[in-house]
């Protein structure tokens, strides 16, 4: 087992564990920290999957920007631990969520387990030279050629988001 693989499996385990912890921890701030950890684990996984640019973006966008937003939101809303419900209710809700999660996971695994191994034969695409360490330029080229339309639409989407945030955040003062 090479170093990459060792890293991959270690951080895969960590990613899953932190994901579960986010769900089960009771404190909002702790959940946020665990979520950051989860996101950073994913960044490591991306790096191992020969996607260094995505890994860096993951750290910057998610680990940085998104988490800052979350922390701000936590501060504004002054979130603390929510009161406990009646234990029966809590158990019922946990049970239902667990059942739904397991059901979904079970089905996804059922589909993937039976069919993913066969993918290798499905698409005999040879590994492209673009992949690997020097793929930033290639990725940029793709964004501006093949994926230009969604790229442009996303710029519209960002404007929509900006206007939306303005409406949601500011209007109150105006009236």
């Amino acid at each position, binding site marked *: 087992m090479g170093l990459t693989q060792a890293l991959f499996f270690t951080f895969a385990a960590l990613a899953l564990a932190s994901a579960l912890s986010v769900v089960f921890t009771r404190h909002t701030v702790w959940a946020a920290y665990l979520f950051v950890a989860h996101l950073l684990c994913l960044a490591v996984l991306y790096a191992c999957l020969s996607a260094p640019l995505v890994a860096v973006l993951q750290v910057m966008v998610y680990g940085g920007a998104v988490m800052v937003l979350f922390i701000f939101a936590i501060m504004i809303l002054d979130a603390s631990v929510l009161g406990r419900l009646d234990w029966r209710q809590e158990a019922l809700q946990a049970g239902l969520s667990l059942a739904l999660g397991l059901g979904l996971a079970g089905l996804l695994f059922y589909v993937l387990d039976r*069919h*993913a191994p066969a*993918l290798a*034969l*499905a698409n005999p695409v040879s590994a492209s030279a673009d992949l690997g360490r020097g793929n930033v330029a290639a990725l940029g080229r793709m964004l501006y050629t093949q994926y230009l*339309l*969604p790229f442009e639409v996303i710029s*519209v*989407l960002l404007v929509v988001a900006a206007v939306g945030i303005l409406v949601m955040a500011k209007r109150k003062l105006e009236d």
Partner: protein
Amino acid sequence: MNGVISMNNLPGIYPDLVVLLGAFAVLALELLWPQKGSKTRVLYVSMAVLGLGLLGLGARSWGMPQEVFPGFLRVDGLSGMAKFILLGIGILTLAAGKSGSRNLGLDHAEYYALLLFALFGMMQLCGSVNFLGTFVDLETFSLAMYVLAGFNKRLAGNREAALKYFLPGAFAAAFFLFGLALVFGATGSVRYQDFVTAWQSPALREAQRALMLAGLGLMLAAFAFKVGLVPFHFWVPDVYEGASTPVSAFLSAGAKVAGMVALLRLVGLVADPLDFFQAGPSSYALGRVLLLLSVLTMMVGNLAALRQKSVKRMLAYSSVAHSGYALVGLVAVLGGHSPDGASALMAYVLVYVLMNFAAFGLVAALEAGWPQALLGRPPMLEDFNGLGFAKPVFGAALALAMFSMAGLPPTAGFTAKFFLFKSAVEAGQVGLVVVAVLNSVLSAAYYLRLVVHLYMRPAAREAGLPLFEGWGAWMTVFCALLLLFWGLLPQSLINLSQAATMGIWH
């Protein structure tokens, strides 16, 4: 070069561009005309933008199907008709909100800009032939819609509506994205064309097919959420009731058109009528899913609507039920080899939009005249008491829309249902049609209830709650006349939808 913008192709999406530029222009106008009371002008500008879009649509976007952005965006009859409906929806939404926009706190440039942005996203979605493009378009219009649903934050209903629309919406987007990943895993591409090629390839293996179907299923769930299919429908009544009336009308009509067109394209991937038998039994599984969703949606929507006292909530459940009817067309697409299923679906969607705006228009007109104290209270059936006599023209128009929703001749509601059911029977879906007809019998009970309030109850508070005879009310009349016209002379409706769905998959 693959996918590079060629200026020659841009006129193909002229209406989309007009709407997009219009949205930016409206935002700029906020700076030019900052004073209060100038917002009516902004509304007229928005309407002009939509009108320009319609003009451009007439000039350029019909005719031969072509991929304006290869692998991403297609301009064909289906997208043409969808854009036609969407631009119409935009104009109707603006009309519905005109009188009451101050009352509802909607008279801000951002409202008009978001509306146009949402329309742009939907119009893009209707032509999208790429899963990633679909995802981005979906998110574009959804983000605008979330904000629109909660636009007036002073009203508790608006705030709750935004939450209940946003959380499941983001959830649905996540499912769509995972489905996209599965499809990418199965085919190595996210283009619709590659999906079809792989699906129809003789070398297709069961493993691949299963992944493709699972991915499609996850995306189906996302669109089922958008158009409000059971059990993805729970947000519908709450959001329609909570959001401002023009926004509710926009949500119900716009999201349904965009969602149904997208569903049609998705379902069409595995159900090319020409190659149906080649596609094999796996599309049968998708057909079963749609069948079940259709039956559940019709039953739940109609049964729950029976009990409603709030008009908007009743219309919400009715809109759920109508999604179920429309799905009958999709089942017909999958279950048979007649293209009538698709055209019947499109005709039904168009007629639904008209019925919906006829109803919401009068609700908005009613609210426009409300005193401040009543704001935020959902309009009840009692509020319509005796309206048929106080305002004969508007009352008659609303009654006609209700009869149309119940599927009675000679309204377009009957025409569209008839066309839909005919296509399904021809596709061999007799059982589904029996359920659908039974449901339309059932639905008469609650549509009739509104007519009873219009014509058979004395107006208790005639003076207290006047009907505002503004654009909203006249819009109801306009839609009702169109419903009557297409009930009596439906050929143009049929021709339109048939032309729109001719050869959409290749």
